């Protein structure tokens, strides 16, 4: 009888764990809904603006004319910085480890000294791993206002312009669907068209979500050329004035979008992790129940056997 008691205690403990994971799943689902709404709202804006900036970068490159210092790749890249966007909480499966691995992989590919700029508590794991850390920023679980990341944008722009860094990258998790999130590294500065294979959002030419060089080339052909003649952009009041205002603002939006993508991914990942945990708990409960019944039956059988053996002995 002692054995059944132990099993029923385990069943109890597993089902209370299940209750907790179920509740966490619900919370994550609510957060996810909010985060997805936010990410979809700004996606069009972010992509359209990035398209414009990239096109300007291309013009600046093809005409060999320096339209703006932020568009020009530096001849010698001696130091880079990578902004790592992680979550504040665990319980979201491989979400954090995947994005950290991606960031490390991209550093390994370009052997340039790279500083980390961390956002999110889980990123601090990097500290013990022999990487340089330039700064740590706090991050709220649900980002609602682009102003929350202004200090980060300001620091990055200043460090880039002062020549402390020659390249700024951002590592984040791209939200593709509630079931799929992909960690990516994207180059923010300098703005270079060849480097955009790592885009924000899902790509499709239909609704112009996501940006690739092909898409930009196609657009240029469609909207900017007549026969062999290719139109050139005019800037009002002047190229430097327009770009001085435009590029920092659009970078802000890009980074904000990266944060939103990361948030939506985080909550989706945590929801599916919790869903799996709940399912695993259910499986365990049913297995244990089966085992419990078997043990109970075995106990009863043994008892009956004992009793009948006793009765037989008395009859003889």
């Amino acid at each position, binding site marked *: 009888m002692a054995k059944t008691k132990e099993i029923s205690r385990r069943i109890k403990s597993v089902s209370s764990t299940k209750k907790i994971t179920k509740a966490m799943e619900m919370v994550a689902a609510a957060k996810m809904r909010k985060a997805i709404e936010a990410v979809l*709202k*700004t996606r*069009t*804006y*972010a992509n*359209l*603006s990035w398209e*414009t900036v990239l096109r*300007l970068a291309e013009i600046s490159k093809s005409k060999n004319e320096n339209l703006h210092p932020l568009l020009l790749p530096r001849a010698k890249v001696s130091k880079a910085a990578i902004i790592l966007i992680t979550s504040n909480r665990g319980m979201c499966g491989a979400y954090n480890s995947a994005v950290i691995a991606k960031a490390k992989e991209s550093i390994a590919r370009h052997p340039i000294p790279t500083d980390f700029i961390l956002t999110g508590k889980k990123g601090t794991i990097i500290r013990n791993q022999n990487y340089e850390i330039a700064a740590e920023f706090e991050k709220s679980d649900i980002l609602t206002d*682009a102003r929350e990341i202004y200090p980060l944008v300001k620091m990055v722009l200043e460090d880039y312009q002062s020549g402390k860094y020659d390249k700024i990258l951002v590592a984040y998790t791209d939200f593709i669907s509630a079931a799929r999130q992909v960690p990516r590294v994207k180059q923010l500065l300098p703005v270079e068209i060849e480097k955009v294979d790592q885009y924000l959002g899902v790509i499709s030419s239909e609704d112009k979500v996501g940006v690739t060089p092909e898409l930009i080339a196609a657009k240029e052909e469609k*909207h*900017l*050329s*007549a026969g062999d003649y290719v*139109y*050139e*952009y*005019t*800037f*009002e*009041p002047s190229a430097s*004035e*327009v770009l001085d*205002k*435009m590029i920092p*603002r*659009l970078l802000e*939006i890009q980074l*904000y979008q990266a944060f939103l993508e990361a948030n939506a991914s985080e909550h989706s990942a945590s929801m599916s992790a919790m869903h799996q945990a709940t399912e695993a708990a259910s499986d365990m409960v049913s297995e244990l129940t089966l085992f419990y019944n078997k043990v109970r039956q075995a106990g009863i059988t043994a008892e009956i056997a004992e009793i009948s053996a006793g009765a037989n002995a008395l009859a003889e």
Partner: protein
Amino acid sequence: MSTKTIKFEIVTPEKVVLKQEILQITVPTASGEITVLPDHIPLVSILQPGVIEIKRADNVVEIMAVSGGFLEVMKDKVVILADTAERAEELDEARIKEAREKAEKLKEEAKNVDDVQFTNIASKIEKELARERALNKWRRLKNVNPGK
């Protein structure tokens, strides 16, 4: 009147405000108000807070209030990246007036605050003014008597 149209899109960080074929558009830019017709030369400019006037392909005129942003013109396409944009018919006069008065009062009180705060307030006033202008223009257009 030509029947050539421009693909027009105005987006804010919040949403896509309007996306359709239009005949012409008038926008306030940093160097003055400009009207874009089909086959305009490609242009990139800064948007000022003010009123946008759009003539849709079905000849209906739409009025919008914007509060700064960027404008990109291509041969047959215009993209506006606005900070905020509202259609005039969605604006509420009482609310605008209240917001502007509040901002102006803040400005009065804030003579000795720092530059950043002052710019914030000033841009807020400009934004509300743009809204008011958009609403007035729309009323004139629709022959609605203001104040009723």
